């Protein structure tokens, strides 16, 4: 019974980690559906975003931009500004990587692209490690008191509420983009059938550019939110989540961004709830086993149908 009483609290943690996994997963799913390869560098795009934000935050503090905490949060305006700029700079970096590397390999095969993305993953991670070292860097030094939600008795910190709201807003924006803007619709069309998209007059190179921009901005968001949740970041931050992200994406249906959101939530919740029963060290394995079970039952995932 001790175990069961912990579950409501674990569900809260699950929603938080699910939010972060979902944001990471959307990018993996979009790249997969447009460019046809599993991008192993996506986790490291997350870490890149988190480190760029850290660098900018130090810079804004140096420039005297106020960083007194906003309301109950443990960070202030300077941090939020760095957050937003980091999304843009991560997107820019990723677009450059595409220009110089992935674009030139696009005429080969999806496996070559996947292999190349592994090279990018390790290269990027070690660039971060080269400059910042392998040790953790603290995002937030302040210790924050949790709010106790009356009745259920679960605790949640204001920063964690921020994470959940940021994820909901991001998902809402992605949904609006995909369903209601011309470029978003073109992106879905290109994901359906790239050759037909070109025949229709859609500039597929522009679509690809937007895919990277959105995927990278969301990766940066996920990385920074993970930093807020853990209070620190390391160069391995993204890689440590990548397996769970892949599991989420496969569970929801590889290539379907909505599946990535659903899958991310399920994986996040399962990983956290599993800690009531087995060692915390096995979180990534829980994700992996759920993924394998899904592949055995329905390889196209919960929401997927193509490919």
């Amino acid at each position: 019974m001790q175990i069961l009483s912990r579950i409501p609290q674990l569900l809260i943690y699950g929603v938080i980690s699910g939010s972060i996994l979902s944001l990471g997963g959307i990018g993996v799913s979009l790249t997969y559906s447009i460019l046809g390869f599993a991008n192993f560098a996506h986790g490291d795009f997350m870490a890149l975003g988190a480190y760029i934000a850290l660098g900018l935050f130090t810079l804004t503090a140096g420039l005297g931009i106020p960083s007194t905490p906003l309301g109950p949060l443990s960070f202030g305006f300077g941090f939020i500004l760095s957050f937003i700029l980091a999304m843009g700079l991560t997107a820019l970096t990723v677009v450059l990587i595409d220009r110089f590397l992935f674009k030139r390999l696009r005429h080969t095969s999806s496996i070559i692209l996947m292999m190349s993305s592994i090279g990018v993953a390790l290269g990027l991670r070690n660039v971060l490690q080269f400059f910042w070292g392998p040790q953790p860097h603290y995002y937030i030094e302040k210790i924050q008191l949790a709010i106790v939600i009356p009745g259920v008795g679960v605790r949640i910190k204001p920063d964690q509420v921020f994470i959940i709201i940021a994820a909901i807003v991001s998902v809402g924006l992605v949904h609006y983009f995909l369903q209601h803007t011309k470029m978003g619709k073109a992106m879905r069309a290109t994901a359906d059938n790239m050759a037909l998209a070109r025949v229709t007059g859609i500039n597929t190179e522009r679509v690809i550019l937007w895919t990277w921009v959105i995927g990278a901005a969301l990766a940066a968001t996920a990385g920074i939110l993970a930093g807020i949740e853990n209070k620190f970041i390391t160069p391995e931050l993204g890689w440590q989540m990548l397996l769970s992200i892949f599991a989420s994406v496969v569970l929801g249906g590889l290539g379907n961004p909505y599946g990535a959101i659903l899958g991310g939530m399920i994986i996040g919740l399962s990983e956290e709830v599993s800690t009531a029963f087995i060692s915390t060290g096995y979180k990534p394995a829980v994700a992996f086993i759920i993924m394998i079970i899904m592949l055995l039952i329905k390889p196209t995932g919960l929401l997927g149908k193509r490919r």
Partner: protein
Amino acid sequence: MDTIVGIINYIVFFAITAGTYGILSLGLNIQWGYTGLFNIGIAGFYAVGAYTAALVSGPPPGAWDGRIFGGFELPFLVGLLAAAVVCGIVALLVGIPTLRLRADYLAIATIGIAETIRLVLKNESWLTNGVWGLQQIPSPLYDPIRAGVTRFLGGHPDLPPWLHDLIFKSYNWFYLLLVLGILFILYLIMQRLVRSPWGRAVKAIREDEDAAAMSGKNTFSFKIQALVLGAMIMGIGGSLYAHYARFISPASFKPLYGTFLVWVMLVLGGSGNNKGAILGSFVVWGIWAGTDFLTGYFPFTATQAASLRIIIIAVLLEVILLWRPQGLLQREKRPPTILKKKA
């Protein structure tokens, strides 16, 4: 003279490691080079091979040990075969759910199994002694050879010191011969295999799986066989590592780095060419070792130097993919179809 002895000893050490990597590269070649299977869990299979050999041939748990199992002190070759068999079983379990699907799924599943294996090694102390790892793994014929060497050196007290030092380390020469011998035997087996009807079948699958399936081949079964065979060879590589290092722990098997090096070796050497696989392992291990010397000349910290070496290897991979995708040695005869346009 001392430096020359140092260099020779280093070369022996270098060749043992490169030869072990050559075995992994041969294993990957049968999976990727000939069959087109994208396995990025090499480190996992390598670790399973090493741990299996250590548990089969190593000593029983000591007082300091968290283990309650294993350590049967069986002969080296038994451990080597056990390593191959256990790796084959793991490969079978990964292959069944994924090999009917697109290549991406196998990639994700193999990296997942490698990570899961690492977690098991870390957490299941009763079997693996957790992060402390397994120690005192015997090297084959170590005692008789050392005894012989000691007796010989005792009988020749007037040898020049450098020769004395070289002979003193001659167990490593023996181990080098063992590794190269196993590498060569595996190479011969692979060469025969890829030219057999079985080899033609897997190559047909690599070229065009749908066409191979239409001509009546059970492609799934062939792919499973290739995955299992490759994993067994990697297991042999792992067992050779365990017996040489004599101490293994989860930290020796960081999931991506080992895997990544083997991939670069195969891609650089020329996937789909067994000679290329072996050549690549020596060249890339040479570059890897060379960068160790090189970064020593710059005012970097140890971790910076380590990062820089990985960056260099990553750049090397991208350079090969962009400008020489066929690698140093081309595939025999047919052009690499992975370079063909997707429909």
